[in-house]
């Protein structure tokens, strides 16, 4: 056997595990038995790892102490949902605006958009929160830390979203614009009726992914004492010294929000793939 052949043939085990032949990928149809058979081993494996780890640790659980403060956690969870929802809307608007700014025919405006995106994407959110809250928000007299938090988060997420939307806009072909021009649509109408609807289909999956990140990123607002979910968990921990009993529900609380989004994202991806 020559070496060339060796390099191109994949071991059967790897092939079976990772490279499905065409037509045998996940079809996306709901099949309960198959779903159970597929998920059970994975769940068991994860459970086993954690069971073993906690067993080794011989951790002494103290749930009642944290349970007393459950309403603190719930209200923090509510604040996280609120902040995420408002930021989600605001960051989409900002993302759309900057996607358009970066396509502007006016060079300085375009560069401004570029600068914004690169600065935000290239620096840690933690630093952005500190700088904007203690310096910028302060000088602009944004006193409310919730408002400041939402603004910071929205501008952070907006930079990523603008890139997602820009890629979507760019994917709409030149001939579509020509066609829109030929039938007499104005520039604004072309965006509204031709470009955006087509771009949206492509941007929706990455957009949902960005929203998942946004929800988790909101936890960093705890450093400016916004009383969101993570801050609540830290507060409760400070009183009860039951770290895991505080942080495990914290993880579960975020998962309850992000998991449905991720699942929705998967079905979206499948639907869009089969439609066009």
């Amino acid at each position, binding site marked *: 056997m020559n070496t060339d052949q060796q390099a191109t043939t994949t071991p059967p085990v790897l092939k079976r595990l990772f490279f499905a032949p065409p037509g045998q990928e996940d079809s996306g149809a709901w099949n309960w038995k198959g779903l159970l058979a597929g998920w059970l081993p994975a769940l068991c494996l994860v459970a086993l790892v954690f069971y073993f780890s906690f067993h080794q640790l011989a951790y002494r659980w103290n749930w009642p102490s944290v349970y007393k403060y459950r309403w603190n956690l719930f209200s923090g969870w509510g604040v996280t949902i609120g902040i995420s929802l408002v930021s989600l809307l605001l960051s989409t608007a900002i993302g759309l605006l900057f996607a358009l700014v970066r396509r502007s025919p006016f060079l300085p405006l375009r560069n401004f958009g570029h600068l914004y995106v690169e600065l935000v994407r290239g620096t840690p959110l933690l630093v952005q929160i500190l700088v904007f809250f203690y310096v910028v928000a302060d000088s602009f007299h944004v006193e409310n830390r919730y408002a400041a938090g939402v603004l910071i988060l929205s501008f952070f997420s907006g930079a990523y979203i603008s890139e997602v939307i820009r890629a979507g806009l760019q994917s709409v072909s030149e*001939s*579509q614009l*020509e*066609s829109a*021009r*030929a*039938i*007499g*649509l*104005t520039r604004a*109408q072309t965006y509204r*009726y*031709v470009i955006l*609807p*087509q771009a949206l*289909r492509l941007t929706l999956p990455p957009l949902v992914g960005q929203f998942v990140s946004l929800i988790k990123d909101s936890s960093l607002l705890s450093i400016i004492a916004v009383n969101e979910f993570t801050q609540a968990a830290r507060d409760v921990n400070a009183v009860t010294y039951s770290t895991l009993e505080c942080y495990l529900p914290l993880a579960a609380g975020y998962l309850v929000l992000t998991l449905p989004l991720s699942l929705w994202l998967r079905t979206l991806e499948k639907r869009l793939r089969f439609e*066009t």
Partner: protein
Amino acid sequence: MRLSISSLSKRFGPHRVLDRLSLALESVHCLALIGPSGGGKTTLLRILAGLETPEAGEVQLDGTAMRFEEAALQRHRRTVGVVFQAFNLFPHLTALQNITLPLEKVHGYAPAEAHEVAMRLLARFQLAAHAAQKPAALSGGQRQRVAIARAVAVKPRVLLFDEPTSALDPEMTAEVLDMIRELGAEGQDLILVTHEMGFARVVADRVAFLAEGRILECGTADQVFNAPVTESCRKFLAAVLKY
């Protein structure tokens, strides 16, 4: 229609696509533009469609001169219909919506009215069954016929075709050409860039031969096809009619 073009010039970079092109037709119903690729046919059509601006020259359609600044061009585009080689339907809209979009958003039809006009056109061209389908679900011929219906729906003073059948199979070509012919017979003014010489001969009352950015020959189909005067037109026809 009355069409008069005088010393129209257009260049892309160093390439002179239209070179002081002139044409005067007192009364023409269907004008076919023929000639070798790169001769300027498509560019001329695009200027007439208001999609391209010439460097110099003048175009008069039915006595009114075209003005080449964006606002005027936009008004102009609303009065003509354009059909492209690659159909250029909007993929996210159904066949019906492709037709109603310009009616509603550009020409101010009420939604019900636009729907009625579009359905009548679709029915007339045996496309009613496909009204709710997206372009991806249609055959090439059906797509092009929807595109033509979209262009006709707004009652343009002239319909412009840019090689409307070049992307189609022979049998689909026939269904599209039938439709264009029918529109012409009804009195719709047409200008078409085409490589379908047989079709041009039957439908066009004037044929213009374009090469090197100029109109080298223009006359009735009979004159141009049977008694070409210039050498390059003779050569071109000999080459395309060989098989």
